């Protein structure tokens, strides 16, 4: 399977995706605009509260090609953050202590040759660092077997996708053999202390639906995951984050191909929750693209919707301006406000 970009699919273009989200594939499907929903609950314009989370996408290259991936990541993606841009990120962190959490994502961030250096440099600044590890990278090649020890050495929080605790659903979404490799990797992480009580080494898992539906209750699902993974594989972890699939990129392609697009969008709109809308992650997050441009969130990044602010690149980062910015919204935002809400840290309501 190739990325949408490698296939020259029109959905590789953010503008084309936005057109479909506004008017449907044939131009005759429109739902209540997200802005109007926010207005109904006095939440428009949606403003940044105060940026605390600095999320850096250090490259779109990945060893997997998941069917739902909003990054359209894969082995054929060559967009990788340079060491110079990473240095600019570090320089910004040095002078902005309010950026307490650094969330390193991709692609598979470990495929960036400067990943280790970058993570270690940020830890020297005494920040909490999250790495979004897809698990299979750990066992993809012997040269990555060191990763659990490396995460431990720098006390990185590991957040890993495991769409379900059964092989069938996981492999359908992430590719054949992914579940088995993920279990091996989880065992390696447990072996160095990740996910174990009293080690302080945090291992959080991410559930996202393997189909055109919303996540069930995060709390109930976490109980089921813990029980199933312990009973079947003797695996432990800390928390489960239930994340809704946003209707963009490859998941949008799936929705359109499977004829589920309209019903999924209706589902998201009908499940709009104003409490979730008030707590959306973009209010306290800034997302940095592989080339240093700034976005309100990883989803806006993939739709090429840059921040609505004169400070648009890491080289011109101005926290005062960014803290006052208006968030750029669109119909895809319904994905973060449906039901219990959704963020990179799971439910928000």
């Amino acid at each position: 399977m190739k990325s949408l970009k490698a296939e020259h699919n029109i959905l590789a273009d953010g503008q084309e995706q936005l057109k479909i989200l506004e008017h449907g594939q044939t131009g005759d499907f429109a739902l209540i605009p997200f802005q109007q929903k926010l207005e109904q609950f006095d939440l428009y314009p949606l403003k940044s509260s105060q940026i605390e989370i600095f999320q850096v996408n250090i490259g779109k290259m990945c060893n997997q090609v998941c069917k739902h991936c909003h990054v359209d990541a894969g082995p054929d993606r060559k967009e990788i953050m340079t060491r110079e841009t990473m240095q600019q990120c570090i320089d910004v962190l040095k002078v902005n202590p309010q950026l307490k959490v650094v969330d390193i994502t991709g692609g598979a961030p470990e495929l960036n040759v400067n990943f280790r250096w970058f993570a270690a440099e940020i830890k020297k600044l005494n920040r909490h660092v999250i790495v979004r590890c897809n698990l299979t990278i750990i066992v993809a090649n012997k040269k990555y077997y060191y990763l659990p020890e490396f995460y431990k050495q720098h006390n990185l929080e590991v957040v890993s996708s495991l769409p379900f605790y059964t092989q069938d659903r996981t492999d359908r979404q992430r590719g054949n053999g992914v579940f088995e490799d993920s279990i091996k990797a989880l065992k390696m992480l447990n072996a160095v202390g990740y996910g174990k009580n009293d080690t302080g080494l945090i291992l959080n898992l991410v559930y996202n639906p393997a189909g055109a539906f919303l996540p069930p209750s995060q709390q109930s699902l976490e109980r089921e995951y813990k029980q199933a993974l312990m009973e079947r594989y003797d695996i432990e972890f800390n928390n489960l984050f239930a994340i809704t699939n946003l209707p963009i990129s490859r998941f949008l392609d799936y929705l359109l191909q499977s004829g589920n697009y309209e019903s999924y969008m209706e589902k998201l709109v009908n499940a709009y929750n104003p409490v979730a809308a008030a707590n959306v992650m973009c209010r306290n997050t800034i997302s940095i693209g592989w080339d240093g441009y700034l976005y309100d969130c990883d989803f806006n990044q993939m739709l090429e919707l840059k921040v609505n602010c004169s400070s648009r690149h890491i080289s011109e980062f101005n926290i005062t301006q960014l803290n006052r910015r208006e968030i750029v919204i669109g119909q895809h935002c319904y994905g973060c406000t449906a039901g219990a809400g959704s963020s990179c840290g799971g439910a928000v309501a």
Partner: protein
Amino acid sequence: MNNNYYNSEDLKKFGNISDFQKNLGEKFFDYYGEVFKDSELTAREKSLIALAVAHAVQCPYCIDAYSSDAYEKGWSEAQMMEAVHVACAIRGGASLVHGVQMMNKVKEIAM
């Protein structure tokens, strides 16, 4: 009026039942909501029971709703089909067990 007795769009209007009788409708939906909460049985287990019952009572709205709900709550296709077979076995068994009554009657009147 639609020409079909069943229309999938009508499922979305289930909540409107209260429009004609507010008090009873609201009591029903309060009760319904309470029944499906996590309690001695989990909401997930209840969803699979509901799926089986939906097939037993052959309600297309319920089958639509609980096929989605059970799958969303993590039951596999095979588990869901086994639940349908349970409903089928009970329905079939309910007919067949009446065969005993037939046998009793025949034995009563036959030489």
